[in-house]
């Protein structure tokens, strides 16, 4: 059992991505970083974020923090949404693309640039879907 946003989630997520994803085939040799802000986390309505960095398709950083920002690094992209939306994406009920187009996940900056990221990030999303099976209720 791995709970979304837990330390274990980060550890297993990292391991999974490194072992299972091919930097060229799965991650299209992408170099980018993404800050995902998760709001309204039950039970006390808190906010957390996770920072994910890829270089040439290789995972460089994957970190979870509390609050809205990750002080140490500035991400190229930032998406923000409710805990429930992330949960739907991670449970495979809603695609990342539709979550962005339905404004459930809000993109800071250009929507166009963020949408271009969706395909290369597919592998990451699938990995996180594979490992995440517990959520706050």
């Amino acid at each position: 059992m791995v709970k979304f946003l837990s330390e274990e989630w980060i550890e297993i997520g990292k391991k999974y991505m490194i072992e299972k994803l091919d930097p060229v085939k799965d991650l299209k040799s992408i170099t980018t970083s993404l800050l995902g802000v998760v709001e309204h986390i039950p039970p006390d309505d808190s906010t957390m974020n996770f920072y994910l960095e890829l270089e040439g398709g290789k995972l460089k950083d994957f970190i979870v923090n509390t609050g809205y920002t990750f002080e140490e690094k500035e991400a190229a992209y930032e998406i923000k949404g409710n805990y429930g939306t992330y949960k739907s994406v991670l449970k495979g009920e809603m695609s990342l693309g539709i979550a962005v187009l339905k404004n459930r996940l809000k993109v800071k900056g250009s929507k166009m640039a963020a949408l271009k990221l969706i395909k290369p990030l597919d592998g990451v999303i699938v990995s996180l879907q594979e490992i995440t099976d517990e959520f706050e209720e």
Partner: protein
Amino acid sequence: MTSDNVLVMEKTSFKDAVTIAKKGTHCGMCRFDFLGSGVCPAGRKHGFLAYWPQGRMEIVKQLDSGRVKPTEKLKDIVNSCNLCGICDKQCNFITQLRPEKVAGALKEYVDSLDESEIQHVPEDDILHGLREIVGDDWATNDPIIISAYTMTILPPDNKLNYYVVMPENTEQISKIVKFANKNNVPYLPRSGGTAFSAAAPTVLVKGLSLEQGIIIDLYRLRNLEIHPDSQTATIGAGITMFELQKEALNHKLRALAAEAGAHVCSNILTTGIISTWGNKYGAFADNFIDLTTVDDEGNIKKHSDWERNNPYSTEPGFTNLSLTPSVIVTEAVVKLHPVFDDEEAVLVPFDNIRDAFRLLIKLGKRDVGLSLAVLSRKYLAEFLSPTIQISKDFDYVCKNYLKLNYVVAVICDQNDKKIVEDMVNCTIDQSLMKSLILGAPRFSKLRDSEFLKILSEEEDPLKAIFAGPMRKHLEKALDPSPEQVSKVFDEDLQDFFKKVYSKPEMTDIVWLHAFRILPTRMMRQQMFMGPGGAMWTGDEDHYLNWIQMFADMGDKLDVEHSLGFISPLDHGKFAYMEYDYYYDHNDPEERNKISKITVDSMEQSLVMGKVLTILNYLYKGIYRKEHVLYPIAKGISEEEQELFKELLGTVLGEEI
């Protein structure tokens, strides 16, 4: 007939009720009084869609399919209906359906139920929270009530995992949004449901509808005040276009008009109000003085707040697609425009689109006329004909004998009328249009007549019939009268329709343009999808090739199709074009074809360039048209086309 002169209603079986209900297309015209017949009292009182004729029809379908089981509320719903027959009058005028039969069959069905068949619906914390905000009567999780929203915000086969809430003011909406966020429940506002109903049978359903969560039904925000001095109106999000227009006309004013049953606040946000009056009255943010909105954090804001980020601009580019509104518009202060005493309708008939387009753009660039559009033959036939068969025959006569394929419809004052008349060969005036409306049944029967055969041999049949010696023969043959046109309706409704057609406005082309009660006839017992968009008019060939592209797609997939309308924007620099495809919404194969056309036509439009497609239009209405329409879009590159395909693939489903 019984002694008290009332026709006894024959009982309708549940099965027949389902058949009727399936033909319904959720136009929403039963929710406001467009014929002077009054409006469903139960719907007015209880608000939830389930209590309106449209909702009862949907419930019958949902019960039949087994998606819902009867609940206590179902009893309340049927008991609230006294079979007064208002819905039959309204619906029959548009669709020729009889929703009262469906309501009657539903009543019978409920009366025959055993108590053990009624399911109990447990309440939960979300429902309690919503009720704390709006009061006990205005929030529910009852599956029967929820199921009524299928096809007009809910997809057809999701689990009915929803709540409906009916707030009455902006503050309540703000609280609902905050509450929904805190509890991680998605939500979506719902107004007239007219945009949803058009999207629902197609691939767009997944993107546009609510997958689970809270339906915020805005019907109760019914504030409507006209301010004659400033020529503005303040309207709540529950007010339909028709209701605003009616109130405005009492002050000799007019609102920018689009679909009669669309709520004005929703229409502003959804499309910026695409209208034949748009060249003169404006589009997008031109329409309003101010908006009150609730954002997705629940914050209440006004466009006029001066210490805020610019609310009028948006990201340009083809990927700026949005499938839900960024804010909920709860109230708008809209601009109104004077109604002049000397307004008149002038229609210029054409056999070909190029000449019609050319005249339209010429008039648009010179700012001639208040309302300006090319309307297709199909539109004329659908709008003017009281029944489906008459519209088919009407279309046939126009096409095969008159070569009347398009009209440029101009609503203007007398000065502009002279300008138009000086520019063209012949026009169809108000009096002849009146004859065509009241004589539509006779007109359609003229097919294969000697009279039309002679006419079709004329060198210019349009001129001969509308400005030549044949005109008086036509008028005679039509024998136009309210009696005549009302005879095509069901016998028990004929007296009512005679009165309706005797009202001056029912044959007044200016009034009909402003109140738009006829366009829903396009969706009588079948559905239509109208892709298109606004294209730069600087290159006539480019524009006409674009229209041809839509026609070719219809031919290729063997779907009934026709140009809808073209209307200029921004002093004729752009023109909005809608191309319509008509199909049976109950046929999955037909629905697939429409989905394919929707996606492919958008892709092809983007490749062609100089266009803002309807999907790019969506939810941009609160921005300045200058930010939305400019810079004029270039055709997308191959790489961008790939991105677009991927994007639609993930969003709309890979199957397209």
